[in-house]
């Protein structure tokens, strides 16, 4: 059984990305233990993958008029709408030797906590390679990953009650990608756990299911802890990067 520090948190997009990067750096020098952080974006935020272009993946007119911030992640993958009232994000910062070497297998291994959480809540979720969690063929969870200095940082989402209309209006998907998925619009390929089970899942229920799901999936003892002063200080320094237009529009 492995031990994982559990952090339950919330904050804006720049804080969340900065803290995850700070934790990856500090884990690499053994300054912090392996950690599972479960957090909410406050306010609701769009994050885009490291290689994505803002104009290709975000409906800028819509997000500007609705004051939804856009933040570039340090991890690859696609754009995500993090709804404060319907989505919880996880980040796992763990030593690379504790996860499968193969990237797809490591996505699956670390995403299993989310899959189990959805099942606990009553939805027949499964992992779909490369990096999706699906319920009845529709995506409710996406994972992204960065490996550096012997440490894996995996981000992932669980949409328990995301406002799908806002998601669909905020994000753009290339036609080529939608055609390959056999859908005409983003809205057709996503779902939430609440939608599937037919009742509104609360944040506390989703959080509880995630804690149980990760604990079972990783055979881990989760020990609730708090952030150290050095984590907060490093995150505070890195926060400026994630707030900067230069970083966000690295690929306009």
């Amino acid at each position, binding site marked *: 059984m492995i031990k994982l520090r559990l952090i339950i948190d919330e904050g804006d997009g720049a804080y969340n990305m900065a803290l995850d990067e700070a934790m990856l750096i500090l884990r690499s020098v053994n300054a912090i233990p392996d950690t599972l952080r479960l957090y909410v974006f406050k306010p609701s935020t769009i994050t885009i*993958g*490291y*290689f*994505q*272009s803002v104009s*290709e*993946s975000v409906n800028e007119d819509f997000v500007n008029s609705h004051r939804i911030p856009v933040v570039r992640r340090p*991890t*690859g*993958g*696609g*754009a995500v709408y993090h709804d404060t009232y319907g989505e919880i994000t996880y980040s796992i910062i763990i030593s690379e030797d504790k996860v499968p070497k193969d*990237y*797809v297998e490591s996505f699956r291994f670390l995403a299993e906590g989310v899959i189990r959480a959805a099942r606990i809540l009553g939805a027949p979720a499964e992992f779909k*390679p*490369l990096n999706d969690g699906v319920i009845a063929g529709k995506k409710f969870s996406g994972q*992204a*990953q*960065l*490996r*550096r200095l012997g440490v894996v940082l995996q981000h992932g989402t669980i949409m328990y009650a995301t406002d799908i209309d806002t998601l669909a209006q905020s994000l753009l998907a*290339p036609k*080529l*990608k939608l*055609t*390959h998925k056999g859908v005409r619009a983003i809205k057709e390929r996503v779902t939430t756990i609440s939608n599937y089970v037919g009742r509104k899942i609360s944040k506390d229920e989703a959080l509880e299911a995630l804690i149980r799901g990760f604990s079972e999936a990783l055979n881990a003892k989760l020990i609730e802890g708090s952030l150290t002063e050095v984590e907060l200080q490093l995150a505070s320094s890195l926060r400026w990067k994630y707030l900067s237009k230069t970083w966000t529009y690295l*690929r306009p």
Partner: protein
Amino acid sequence: MTVKLTLEKEYKEPKGKYLHLKLIVNDRCCIDNMVITGDFFAYPPENIDKLSLVLKGSTLFNIDDLMKRVEGIIKNTEIIGINGRIFKELILGLLKEGLKECQRVKEK
């Protein structure tokens, strides 16, 4: 006035990820920029930025040399979600297309 040509290529790997290449070439057949975007993963990620930097400002007349440099970087990069060979071929194809197009413009 400098004429700039923009050439683009999109690719979606079956059951994989999306890649969009945008090559901007000037009328002297020099690369102004190669923008590589998509929802794929790469390790180390900086190598993709390095790829764009290596191409930026280079002349397309030395396409073989350019490709060797591109290959050198891709060899040391693990691309997840897009087949590495296809990734390389798409870049090479776009560079060749860029050379052809700018020569055509020059001849006009």
